[in-house]
């Protein structure tokens, strides 16, 4: 089992960050490559931009610790644990940690790499108050024709 951890500091209060990062139904708003996420009891189902539907089991939503834990239950991984922690840094800013333990090891890198981009987008949205970026190949319109 391999482990990958990404973290970022966000100039917003821990409560503000948790309001978005701790809401499992809003993952697709800040995780690049996720186009949908829905929650049904302890099960979250996310859909990636490549069309993969991934069921996940929600393990922990703790608004006091500001900790969210989940595991991917699809065949993409044999084992997985994802943990998001939001820490109050006391100066109206927060440290957000997103860790990924996974087997096969390669999947930890793939998922962990994506979590790094997700944290960057989370910071961008919260610091810029910008609307979420649409999914697709580009932030700019396509100009190409079909191949």
């Amino acid at each position, binding site marked *: 089992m391999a482990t990958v951890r990404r973290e970022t500091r966000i100039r917003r209060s821990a409560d503000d960050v948790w309001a978005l990062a701790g809401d499992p139904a809003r993952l697709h708003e800040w995780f690049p490559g996720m186009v949908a996420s829905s929650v049904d009891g302890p099960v979250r189902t996310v859909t*990636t*931009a*490549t069309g993969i539907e991934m069921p996940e089991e929600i393990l922990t939503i703790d608004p006091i610790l500001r900790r969210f834990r989940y595991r991917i239950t699809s065949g993409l991984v044999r084992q997985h644990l994802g943990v998001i922690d939001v820490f109050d840094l006391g100066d109206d800013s927060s440290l957000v940690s997103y860790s990924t333990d996974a087997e096969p*090891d*390669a999947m930890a890198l793939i998922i962990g790499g994506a979590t790094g981009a997700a944290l960057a987008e989370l910071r961008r949205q919260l610091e810029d108050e910008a609307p979420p970026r649409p999914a697709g190949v580009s932030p700019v319109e*396509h100009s190409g024709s079909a*191949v």
Partner: protein
Amino acid sequence: MGRKILFVTTDQQRYDTLGCNGGTLARTPVVDALAAQGVRYERAVPQSVVCMPSRSTMLTGQHPATHGVWMNGVPLPVDAPSVAAELQRAGYRTALIGKAHFEPYLDPFGRFTENMLAIEGVETTDQPWFDGTIGPHRGFEHLEFATHGAAGQHHYARWLREHHPEAVGMYYATLDRSANVNAAGGGDTDAPQAHHNQIERGWYHTDWVADRTITWLDALDAGDDWFAWMSFPDPHHPWDPPASEMARIDWRDVPLPAGYPVDRVERERNLDDKPRHWRLWYDGELVSNYEAPRDWVPATLTDDQVREVNARNAVECELIDEALGRVLAAIDRRGWTDDVDVIFTTDHGELQGDHGLLFKGPYHVDALMRLPLVWRPAPSAAVAPAVVQRPVGLVDLAPTFCAIAGLGAADWMQGAALPVDDADADARGFERVLTQWDSELFGVAVHVRTITRDGWVCTAYGPGAVHDGTEGELYDLADDPLQQHNRWDDPAAASMRADLLADLWDHQPVARSPKLELEAPV
């Protein structure tokens, strides 16, 4: 109307696989003819010996430290400098057909543009360029991707699934069920990544890349200037060329390569003479990089496996040569030949039995570092045929494309237009080439810096998982062309070592800051 550019790259091809470079296994008459008409480089060196950093160097004209793609799995930012953008801005029609690999392949989230272009079936998309201009992705108005087989979402895989679905499963599975590089053996000798592929030759990715290049060229206007990067995924493993072509070379007749010490005692003594990670990998105790199969132990390599791998590789090189011949014929039919520059090279080499090893990793020796490079200038330019002995780098390609197009090198490019002969090289200061390796994978870090100069190769290791920062390698390429005897600690070479190290550290390229993140294994 100016000169047009056909930039032909292969993947993981050794210097000695071409007839013009003395190779005797593969027949490569097309590239050999280009070499005879143009300039052949005897010491072309990559700035990285893995795909993504090296290909990013070709595109940006920058060293890996500067463009920031420090290992496979680190994506080149979409707004990185691009020579294709420079050419497109100057009016060139631009295409990249085949293997790009500026962004990771393993991408279930669809985060990377090049994967999504294939999924969405569009030939490019507008993106911000280095200078804020909005233009086609990395300057290419047409992109069609292929890689080593039929897995994944790239254009070739989708084409094969649509038109010849029965052939999809004929390829070797490059990754195993753990998404690691597959160690499974096959072929006749159970060599790793060898495989009998029953695919029809015309459906194989080499011919597909040539076919799509011809289609794109045929759609251009006669008066267009164009830059076509035709990028073959072969002869990179898996070694699974169409079985119908394997009769060309019987592996049983293949001589063992000079770089493969047949005697195990000699082989292991040579490895023990090098920094520790060489022998640790050979014994299966440390796989420091993703590109080598995690479950394969090099010490198990047999003579027959080396023969079969070399035979299969040679067949793949022949298919590339023939495919290139078809593209050149198509160019000729358009009446363009006189104004077309052809540059043929690869991103890095391959350990094809050298030192008892296969594949690649942090091993800066000729198997991985001495590249085929041939430039056939447009006949209209009247450049005299030549062989260049001075060291040149892939970092010099982007300025060369600019020079061909009549443009000055962009100020962000770190190389210089390739010399047309040694006198030109001397006049313009082609003295040294730098290569780097950095990897940090699951807690294992390897950091390597190398200089090639004055007929020597000197490699220094930084602190890492198995190095304390004092290790190194030093080879005299004239006396030890196979780099089997490490002279790092040889007192007789101490002054040369000191001189080369000083030069190495004096010329380190500026490093991108902040460091880009590793986002996938490859």
